[in-house]
């Protein structure tokens, strides 16, 4: 699969992944654009489509972290918890039940969010999540477990508030 085909096939899903991590479409598009730019810059192309997608996925996660870090340092007055689902794509409105879950997700730690997004949206295995995030499978498992517990607690607190 050539880069053009890879771009055409996976750009949207990668933007969606980045969106779930950085929470605004413009940043998500930038993150994915940078990820493809890094891949284009490789002198040794990844011919295996699975390896290429894994490379892009990791690049998107790392790029999302950088985007968040830049956002948090350059515009530090905007706390992460206040960044609700932006809606430049106003064609759809999130149901209240979904918003509650996403608000809770936004209050978790960075790694917990990443693990949950990769597990429950990307549908990756523990091994693939471990490879994407550069952590052990055991850490993926324990992080996912703790993240779900934390999400449940946060949502319960919100419902009782």
């Amino acid at each position, binding site marked *: 699969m050539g*880069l*053009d085909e890879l*771009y055409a096939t996976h*750009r*949207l899903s990668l*933007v*969606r*992944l980045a*969106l*779930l991590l950085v929470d605004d*479409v413009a940043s*998500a*598009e930038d993150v994915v*654009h940078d990820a*493809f*730019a*890094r891949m*284009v*810059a*490789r*002198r*040794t192309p990844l011919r295996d489509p699975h390896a290429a997608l894994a490379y892009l996925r990791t690049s998107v996660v790392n790029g999302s972290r950088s985007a968040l*870090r*830049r956002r*948090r*340092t*350059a*515009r*530090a*007055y905007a706390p992460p918890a206040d960044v609700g*689902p932006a*809606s*430049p*794509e106003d*064609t*759809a409105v*999130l*149901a209240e*039940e*979904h918003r509650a*879950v*996403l608000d809770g*997700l936004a209050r*978790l*730690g*960075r*790694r*917990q969010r990443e693990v*949950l*997004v990769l597990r*429950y*949206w990307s549908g990756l295995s523990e091994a693939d999540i471990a490879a994407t*995030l*550069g*952590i*052990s499978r055991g*850490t993926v498992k324990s992080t996912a477990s703790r993240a*779900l517990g934390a*999400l*449940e607690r946060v949502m319960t607190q919100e419902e009782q508030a």
Partner: protein
Amino acid sequence: MSSDLEKRLADALEARASQVGPEHLSPRGLPAPERRGPARPVWVGLAAAACLAAVGAGVVVPRLLADPDSAAPPAVSRPDVPSDVGRDWTPIDGVRSELDLDGDGESDAVELRGEPDPGYEGRTRLDVDLSGGGTAYGVVDLGSTLTSYSPQGADLDGDGTDEMVLTLDVAETSTRPLVLDLRDGVLVEVEQPLGDRTPLTAGPLQAGVDPDSGLVEQRVTDWWVADGTLRSSVSETAYPALGMSWFVPDPYVAQVVTWRLDGDVLLSRPADDVCVSRLDDERRPCGPGEQDGLPDLTPAAGDLVATGQTADLEGGLPSRVRVVDAGGRDRVLLGAPGEPGSGFERTGTRLRIFTTAPSAVVVDAVTAAYDSDADDRPDGVLVESEVGGISVLAAPDDDPAWLTAGGEVYTTSAASGRVGLGQWVRDGDELVVVPLGTVCLPDDGDVTAAERC
């Protein structure tokens, strides 16, 4: 999906993701190739250059690395960070710094404050009391506020003032430097240019999979600040990893780059190789033609116990082995001293047990190496099982093996005129051979004279 929460989470993520469709994407095409900065790790270029140079004098070696100086100076940016952010965050104790941000020859005092966060994943505020007068501050995301690496100073742009270098955890086993430049009283983060993949980390860098052993191979990366300079290195060779073990020779040869600040970005320049000894915790210039070190292949462990004998094993966990005659069969009892030990019977052949434990083969259990054909070479190892009894792990292949006084079992295998050095390691319920590279042996095969080819 095992719970209602998991289903709600998956549904919410899908709903959010589905809000972006193809029609919402900007009409950008595939990015054009990046023009500036080295497009591949420096060590690749260095190796290629060395090969070409060796072909013969008079050959013009093409410049394989992009010349950082040929790039246009990048624009200098300064993010707008409100000065009051994080003033009330929790002070992080134990921070020591020796850096001179204002260039007056005196160290500046640095204070770190961590953003309250139950997971210690908040941001960190940096406050600097400049010795020459005035203050500076910055807000960074170090990944954790739990640990505090003390800031270091390095004059990366040669203007007589230090930049601040912090340590950022990027994975469980890796760090990278986070470089901050002081601009108008604000500490601003600077990074490598987009597309520059020169390693600037400390930790393993996955390089591929060995096709024969199937083991992951990783290069060793490192970075450090010394004499006011930020340097990083990557090992010339990738080394196999298995579980928590990584088989890095000591010393290993690493290629080095120095980093300098040009506007907003960090650019690298090749420097001299170093030979790194992790055992001695030193980096030193490599000697002429110096290669990766070899492990201690000798002395070989030669003492064995046979039928009717008992011995406390040397090395590894405290253990005692006894070989008894059980009616024409050898019965080996292995366990902690003072305990009867688990039994293992072997029919037909006489077993002898090495008095040196193969502690580098099996690191977490009582273990012994056995010789079943009286050639004074190990034919496998016995392992006391957690659930009782003894597990027998047979030799992974027929290559000649020897046990050293240090508890390692090495093997050599000759193929295509090359001698491959390997090391036995337990992998679950079996022994595997971890490849340690090729060596040259004298005609008599004397391993005491082994050297890198």
